[in-house]
Each structure stands twice: as structure tokens, then as C-alpha cells.
């Protein structure tokens, strides 16, 4: 999925930014739901990614010798 393409760093930064805005009261209540949704999504992406193994463990490249 496209949403999987986001890096941990970008995800955490976005969460941080949104959190900052919410904490500062910069967000309208109207936007709150959308933001909660987004943050939740980002958290989920990160969590899922953490558990995911891209390829089989110990795929060995034996080009040597």
C-alpha cells in the first residue's frame, strides 16, 4: 500500500507536529477527528512495520570464492 511507503522518521515527525498543534490549541475542533485519524493511522503503520519482515530471515548471498 502507498501508506506503507512512509518512513518511520516521517511518520514520527508528522505525529509530533500534529501533537504539537493539538497541544498548542492550534487545531480547530473540526479538524481534530481528521487529525486523530491520521495520527492513529501513522501509529498503526509504524507498529505494523515494526513487526514485518521484508524477506526470509538470513537470505544468504554467497558470491564469494
Amino acid at each position, binding site marked *: 500500500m502507498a501508506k506503507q511507503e512512509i518512513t*518511520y522518521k516521517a511518520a514520527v515527525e508528522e505525529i509530533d507536529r500534529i501533537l504539537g498543534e*493539538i497541544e498548542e490549541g492550534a487545531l480547530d475542533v473540526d479538524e481534530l477527528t481528521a487529525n486523530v485519524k491520521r*495520527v492513529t493511522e501513522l501509529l498503526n503503520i509504524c507498529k505494523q512495520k*515494526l513487526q514485518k519482515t521484508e524477506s526470509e*530471515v538470513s*537470505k544468504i548471498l554467497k558470491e564469494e570464492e
Partner: protein
Amino acid sequence: MTPESITLSSLNLQIRNAMQEAFPDAVWVIAEIHEMHINRSGHCYMELIEKSETDSNIVAKNRATIWSSRFRMLRSYFESTSGTQLQPGIKVLIKAEVSFHPVYGLSLNISDIDPSYTMGDLAMKKREVIRQLQEAGIMEMNRELVLTDVPQRIAVISSETAAGYGDFIGTLVNNSYGFGFSVTLFPAIVQGESAERSIIAALERVFLAERSFDAAVLIRGGGSQADLDCFNGYELAMNIAQFPIPVLTGIGHERDETIADMVAHQHLKTPTAVAEFLVDRLLEFSGLLDRLQERFSYTVERIIQQENHTLAQKASDIQHLTRQYVTRENHALEVYRTGILTSTAKLLKAASTNIADQSGKLKYLWKNLHDHRKRDLLSMKERQHRTIAERLRSGHEKIRQAERSLEYLRPEKILSRGYSITYSNGKIVKSVKELEKGDTLETRMSDGKVQSTVRELDYTNEK
């Protein structure tokens, strides 16, 4: 003529005897192990050399032997004490008997090796490598790289068959948090003479796929504690230091750091420790996510609560403010009502007072004017009396004065004072010239007349 000669064996026997005489006791010798092999019986055969300090040319060379019983003991003592393997390339201080065998020739029979010499030499070598790295300015390069918070894509450089590698994979894959790792093994020989070259070659292969990895892990699959020399080489250190992704080492030694450890981004004691380190790193990130989530939930709840409170406050404010507003306006209206009462009363009173004042003023002015006029009339009357009296008095005075003047001028009065009037021929004589001698004069006095005749005329009074 045949010169005097001896057999080779006699010569060799003589050499042996001479050598036994020359080197009755064992001597301590410094040499470098050039070659070394152990035969089936466990005897160790070496070739010792000495290189020129200036050009590394071999300036001396000897065979040496350590008999198997001695070798087992010496080797384990040496390796455990020095932390380095007894192998070609290292310098050693050996205690050796110089022996000469008629068949095998000169050989050194090693009875002891002093590991402290080798240790000193190794330490010196290590210092030299460090100095070179520092000079090149690359010592800190790998350490300065940033290891991602979530190192999941790992390039492992290890011997596939090593126990340490198994430990590493086991710990990583079976982590209790279910974190996923993608591990790629780049096999390398991690011990022995060819280790350094092999590791460098593996690193080069990782380098080709640099972007696919978060970190490179260099682990040594168990093996001898002493077999660490390959990790102290300048060449490997340079490769690790300048490696574009963080290199983690888990070489599996306890005593001291290898140079590879020193230049690596992070060095850990064992492969398992490296795996734990990686798992911990992910755990830490996972914790960060949890904290973010918690903070987020808390913040959102707090915001909503706060907004609820604010709205309630505003609802209460509107009640309060409108009540205040109405009260204030009511009061203002009341003030106006009072004001109109007061002001009107004041205005009417002022007008009333003004009227009373004007009325009083009228009376006062009138009386004043009237009194004034009356006084004026009286004074006019007095003036009339006075004027008339004065006028009459001055009339009388005038008459009296005229009478007095008249009285004084009357002829009878003049005559009575001794004057007389002289007539001649009925005319009043005023000059002697009017008369001639003999004229009859009639002189009138106050009480009668006298008749006389002129006798003489005298003009004495003529001027």
C-alpha cells in the same frame, strides 16, 4: 696429493660438539615466526626469521621445534596470556637450546615462550595502527554516522557455520516482541590469516547494496579467544571506519578492544549482545510509539475536556453577562429617573428663586428710585427758597448801595462839607477867566446866599 680430510659425519659431530661447547645453556632469542606447522604427533615446527629494521629483508633464519608435550602447554599458556594466537607473523621471545643434528642440521629447540614480549609487540602494533587511523582522520567516521532508530535491515558479515552467527540469528528472530528483521548474510572467514581480506571483501559486497541496509554487523563465530589479530589490521579498520552505514561488531572476546571494535559505530561483546542491542533499539522505538500514542490520547481527551469546560464556562458567562447587562441598564434607567426628578425640581426651584429675586429686586429698585426722587424734589424746593431769598437779598443790597452812593453825591451834602457854588449873572462860575473886575458874584452855601463884587483877578493857579 690428497689433502687431509674427514668424513662429513666426523665434521658434523665436531660442529655439534663445538656448538654444545659454545651454547651449553639455553638462550633467550627474539624472532619472528615465519612459518609454522604441526605434525600429526603434535610437534610444532617453525621457521624463525629476523627482518631488517630498515628494508624488511630477512637477515637471519632458523628452524625451530617445540616438542608436542611442551607445545601443548606453551601454546595454551601463550595464547591465553597474550590474547593472541601463536601463528606466523607474530614476534616471540623464546628460550631455546641450540642443537645441531648431524642429519637435520641446526635447529632451535624451544623450551619456553614469554608471552609478555609478544603482548608488548602487539600493543605497539595496535598503537601504530591507531596512530595511522588518527592521522588519516577517519577514526571517528563510522561512529559519527547516525544509526536509525529502527534498524531492521541488517547485513551480517560472519562465517555461516559459526556458533556466534547462530546465536545472533536466534536472538534476533526469536525476539519476544515479534519485531521483524531482514537479515542478509555476507559470509566471510573470520579467523586465521585470510580473515582480514575475506572480511574486507564481504564489506565491499555490502557496500554495493548499501541502501538496502540499516546496519552492517560484523560477528565472529566463536573460536579462539586469541584469534583476534585479523581485527587489528589497518586495512580492515580503514574499511570499517569509512563504511557508509553503521558497523556493529560482536567479535566475541572479553579482554580488550580490537581496532575493528574501536572504529565501529557500536561494539558489543558477543553476537548475541549485538542482536539484543538491535532488539532493544526497536523496543525503544516501539516504546516511543506507545508514549506518543498515550500522549496523543491524553492530549485529545484533555482538549475535548477543556473545550467542554470552555463551552460550559461560556454558557455560564452569557447568563451572568446578560443578567449583569440588564441590571446595569435597569440601574441606569433608575438613575435617569432620579436625575429627571432632581433636575426638574432643581430647575423649578432655581426658576422660582429667580422670580422671587426679581420680585424683591423690583420692590427694592422702585423704593430706592422713589426715595431718591422725593429727596430730589425736596432739595429742589430748598434750592428754590434759597435762590429766591438770595435774589431778593441782592436786590435790596443793590438798592441800598445806590442810595448810599447817591447820598454821598447829593449837592446839599457837598455844600455842608464847606464847598460853595459861585454864580455870576445866574451862571455857575467854573473859571477866573469868566470874570472881570467888578462883576457881581452870588455865592451859595449850605445855609444861604452871599452877594459880592470882584476886586482882583489872580491867575496863579493857571498852568
